[in-house]
């Protein structure tokens, strides 16, 4: 796969503060890559260096084989950006904004406006648009010139759930059309729903990168089984003795059995062996959020409840 973005050893300081600390990042053609992390992790500064808005102190940045610092004008017609903390002039109308930002390769405006529900708002001033309409307009502007790479920073902030789904669909269809997407977000469900790969940053460094499922397996390798305790006639000891189980808890009327992934099969086998097959057994798998929380709090495994409380049966 061709690399669309290649960042090597990127460093950026604001005064004495190192906000991006030797970051390596690759984004390949046709991928949706998510940059995740807390506020102040260095995500926005990294994408600002990629989009040529900031000059890196060290390291190299290549976008579509070009240097954003030197080939800015050439590059910016190939990259569509939706940046955090950026706005349009209050009194600029939707149609005027599109006219201002459209280049020679621009796609059909009517279709684009209709797709993002802005067709009725052409004559409306930017200041009169709702938060969701503004974000959709930014997306329209980012896609307008058929970019090869789209950089989206906190795109769905302030959108209602339905509008977020619409934007997600738009991003997926963009990828299907061959556009590469670099997404900065702190919504884990968004990253999980959209991204082929995520890169987790903290304190200016990359902590880990990979497909969401890979990160979950690597950093949240546990599962929880729940079923009705009232009819099973089981004791906590029966369950905590099963291989792989790290914690058994009675949560109201429900058994809550926690352990590694192999535990799932062993617990089920044990239930069958004891002749106590529940009707309502559910396996709860950790999501990307759990993996990222575990990754961001090294050593503490804060996201793994088994490490927090060891109530219930003895291990």
């Amino acid at each position, binding site marked *: 796969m061709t690399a669309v973005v290649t960042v090597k050893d990127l460093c950026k300081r604001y005064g004495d503060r190192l906000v991006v600390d030797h970051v390596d990042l690759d984004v390949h053609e046709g991928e949706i890559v998510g940059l995740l992390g807390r506020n102040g992790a260095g995500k926005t500064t990294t994408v600002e260096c990629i*989009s*040529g*808005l*900031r*000059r890196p102190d060290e390291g190299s940045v290549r976008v579509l084989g070009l240097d954003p610092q030197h080939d*800015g*004008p050439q590059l*910016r*017609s190939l990259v569509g*950006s939706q*940046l955090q*903390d*950026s*706005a*349009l*002039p209050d*009194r*600029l109308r939707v149609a*005027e904004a599109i*006219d*201002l*930002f459209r*280049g020679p390769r621009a796609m059909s405006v009517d279709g684009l406006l209709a797709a993002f529900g802005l067709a009725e708002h052409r004559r409306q001033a930017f200041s009169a648009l709702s938060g969701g309409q503004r974000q959709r307009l930014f997306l329209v*502007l980012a896609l307008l010139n058929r970019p090869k790479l789209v950089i989206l920073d906190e795109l769905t902030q302030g959108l209602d759930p339905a509008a977020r789904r619409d934007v997600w669909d738009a991003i997926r269809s963009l990828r299907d059309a061959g556009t590469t997407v670099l997404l900065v977000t702190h919504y884990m469900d968004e990253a999980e729903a959209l991204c082929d790969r995520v890169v987790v940053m903290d304190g200016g460094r990359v902590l880990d990168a990979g497909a969401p499922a890979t990160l979950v397996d690597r950093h949240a390798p546990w599962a929880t089984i729940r079923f009705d305790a009232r009819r099973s006639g089981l004791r906590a000891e029966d369950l905590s003795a099963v291989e792989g189980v790290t914690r058994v808890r009675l949560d109201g009327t429900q058994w809550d059995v926690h352990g590694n992934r192999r535990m799932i099969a062993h617990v089920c086998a044990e239930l069958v062996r004891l002749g106590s097959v529940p009707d309502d057994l559910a396996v709860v798998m950790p999501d990307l959020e759990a993996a990222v929380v575990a990754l961001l709090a090294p050593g503490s495994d804060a996201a793994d409840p088994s490490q927090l409380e060891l109530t219930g049966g003895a291990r």
Partner: protein
Amino acid sequence: MKTALKLIRTELRLVLREPLVLAFVFAFPIVTVLVIAGSFGASDAHSFANIYPSQWYVASYLAVVIGAIGLVMVPVHLAAYRERGVLRRFSAAGFPRWSFAAAELAVGVILTLVASAVLLVVAGLVYGLPPVSSPLATAAAVLLGAVAFTSVGLLLGAVVPNARAAQGIGLLAFFPSFLLGGGGPPPDAMGAGMRHIARFLPLTHVTSSIRQPWLGIGHGSWDLLVVAGVLLASAVGWRRAVRL
């Protein structure tokens, strides 16, 4: 070039939708020239280098338009853009920094010409227009003054922390410049101290570089040189301020 033209057209449209611009650049000079020229119109012409006072004022007020654009409109407009991330968006979309500065310069000059024309029509209907003694030198002084003060505005807009600060600093710079630098009481009515301060205000030199060749009371080249110096200094300052 095409993008710069698009930016100029958009910016021109936007500043004309700005109530502050309409008030300061169009209404304020017209209202004050009518009031001031009306109040001092019957004064002794000796206070005005032997020029009929209302004519003296009409020839002075183009500089008030230039001052309002450079000291109030451009810095407030630009600081608001910076504060709200509009400049970030423009530059991420591929508009180079210079293209925005060029657009503001063009808007500053165009607005000076339009607002001056409106001012001259109104003042001309009320007081009559003084004949222009050296049209070329007068036009050159208006253009250079507009470019120089728009550059001052670009510099101010680039260094002030936000739009509210720009408004405060802009008004603080504008009113003394306006009162002492040409739009206020006649020079003879000011004390020596005031006249001394006036000499250090850039707008005073814009006023004289326009008024002198217009009324035929001098060539104004010395003042024009000072205005050129202001342009150079603010251009250099701007270049340093916007470095990424």
